[in-house]
């Protein structure tokens, strides 16, 4: 199992490299005017200057050489955006605290709430609680984050001033203001995941309840609570946790584009959306690589949690 998870993590990284290659080809080869040299040289440059710059930055080299050079620059932190001529590393580093704050809060909320909802719906399957939770999760998966965000900003921000309208306050500056400014984004980002995860957990629990070992546990006289927590939940949580690992990694890697945009949080997702709009290949590739790193780290964490939850897996 652990080997399977490690292999899956490695596959995911290979895929992210494939993504970076596809993005590179799309933007450099498919798009015309993809030659950033003329952009760097400025409007008044003569052809020889453009050629000089083209040569210095390596735009005259074969595509694969350009690709590997760009990737090497990204990894040693010396990549510059051809569009804004900012250091890409610095830009991501500026956005990262916002995105990590968003991801941490939302990740904890959506994990805990969906465990609660999923478990409740499963043990009350077919009854009133289950139906209400099912409807709620259906609303959740049908809710575009930018619409939900707009509604919250208007009613809780402008109308009643309960919550701030937008902006981000660093944790180091004021932890209370930090949380206060992030409550709405946390909630908005969590809603969709809660809707989906609680449905998955509900059906996993219902499947697990019919397993033989659960019947055995009941038969030997364990209390229903102990059977639920120690025998049913412990295995039913596994799929939720691996889903969570990947989703959380994607949010860190700028996956929360819509939430960050609607709340004006200038995080990695916002940067990703901006760089696609500006066809800023280098920045976009860097963000994809950030996702790759996040996937590796989260995969390790998921492996660890698997070992804790599943007694058959032991960490070497």
């Amino acid at each position, binding site marked *: 199992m652990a080997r399977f998870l490690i292999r899956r993590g490695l596959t995911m990284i290979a895929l992210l490299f494939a993504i970076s290659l596809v993005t590179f080809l799309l933007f450099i080869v498919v798009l015309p005017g993809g030659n950033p040299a003329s952009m760097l040289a400025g409007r008044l440059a003569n052809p020889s200057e453009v050629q000089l710059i083209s040569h210095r930055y390596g735009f005259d080299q074969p595509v694969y050489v350009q690709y590997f050079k760009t990737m090497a620059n990204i990894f040693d932190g010396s990549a510059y955006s051809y569009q804004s001529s900012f250091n890409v590393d610095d830009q991501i580093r500026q956005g990262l605290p916002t995105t990590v704050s968003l991801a941490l809060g939302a990740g904890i909320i959506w994990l805990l709430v969906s465990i609660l909802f999923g478990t409740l719906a499963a043990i009350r399957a077919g009854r009133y609680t289950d139906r209400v939770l099912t409807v709620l999760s259906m609303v959740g998966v049908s809710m575009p984050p930018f619409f939900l965000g707009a509604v919250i900003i208007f009613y809780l921000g402008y109308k009643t001033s309960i919550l701030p309208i937008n902006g981000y306050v660093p944790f180091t500056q004021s932890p209370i203001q930090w949380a206060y400014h992030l409550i709405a984004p946390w909630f908005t980002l969590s809603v*969709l995941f809660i809707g989906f995860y609680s449905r998955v957990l509900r059906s996993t629990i219902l499947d697990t309840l019919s397993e033989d070992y659960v019947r055995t546990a009941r038969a030997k006289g364990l209390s229903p609570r102990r059977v639920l927590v120690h025998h049913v939940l412990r295995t039913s949580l596994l799929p939720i946790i691996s889903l969570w690992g990947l989703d959380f990694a994607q949010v860190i890697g700028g996956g929360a584009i*819509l939430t960050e945009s609607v709340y004006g949080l200038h995080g990695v997702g916002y940067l990703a959306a901006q760089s696609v709009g500006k066809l800023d290949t280098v920045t976009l590739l860097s963000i994809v690589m950030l996702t790759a790193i996040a996937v590796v780290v989260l995969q390790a964490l998921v492996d660890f949690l698997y070992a804790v939850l599943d007694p058959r897996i032991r960490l070497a």
Partner: protein
Amino acid sequence: MTITGPNPAEGAPETGLPPALLHEAAEVGPGVGPWALAWRRLRRNRVALFFGGLFLLIVVICLLAPVYSNDIAHIGPNDQNVINTTNAIGIPIGPTWRFDHYFLGADNLGRDVAVRLLYGGRTSLEVGAVATLITMVLGVLLAIVAGYFRGLADGILSRIMDVIWAYPVVLLGIVLGTVIAVRGLGPFKSTTPLSTALVIGFVYIPYVFRPVRAQVLVLREREFVDAARQQGLSAGQIMLGEILPNLSSTIVVFVPLILANAILLEAALTYLGAGINPPNASWGTMISDGINEIPAAFHLVLVPGIMLVLAVMSVNIFGDGLRDAFDPRSRVRIAIASTSQGD
């Protein structure tokens, strides 16, 4: 997580079937096909039927947009009329609740929100429907080819699908949408509703490809496929005549799921500027226009937003009922929802 299609051998009681289903199997007796059985279950699910009906109603109302525009409201979706519809500082009027005069209010250019809502709905639903068609046709056909031939064809197709699948949905959508907007792609010189549908349809192909391929891998080993092969049927005949019909219940279950997500993705791409272009109305353009007007005229966000959520939710709930009807033992197999928005 495992993604499997509905069990094709439904109806035959076997061990491990929940008591309620055993009871049902006994009740309907032998000889009732999977479709009749599914319809029997769906008919009992009032909630799913209600929301299926609601979605049909929304579709019909949106298709009647020209009728409302010409005969009742007497104003086109892009007709501007700032006199009497905006106040001194340019804030548009809210809903008047009069069918013949700005029923749901005006926007900041004095356009009729109700008329635009219906026309926009038409665009959103059409984009969603075309995208779903593209996803289903390509997803299923490629899956049949990959699953039937296995080997090299399967390897290549599966790896391509893996790459598309690993790309965050919204990010891939805006990358492709931007490439089309800047460069054009084939016949598309710039963004059109059809090009947006193409992008959305493309993005969701792996979500259909993977589960269908898994099912084809099982089906190709079954006796009836062997029999067809013995009779000398060509690979094409077996794939389309023998395997495809056996995938129909999976396909039926996937259509509403993809449709709901396609409608959502249209709105998301448009909001990020990589989807439908103004002044064309779609629910996505209306919401993103409205977000720029916060807090002055919130009905501009609320009206299209509620409509969008209602439409998507009714498709989702109906789809959920449909899945239960075809495979009551289903483990939730919607890997789609989790990645639909990227966040």
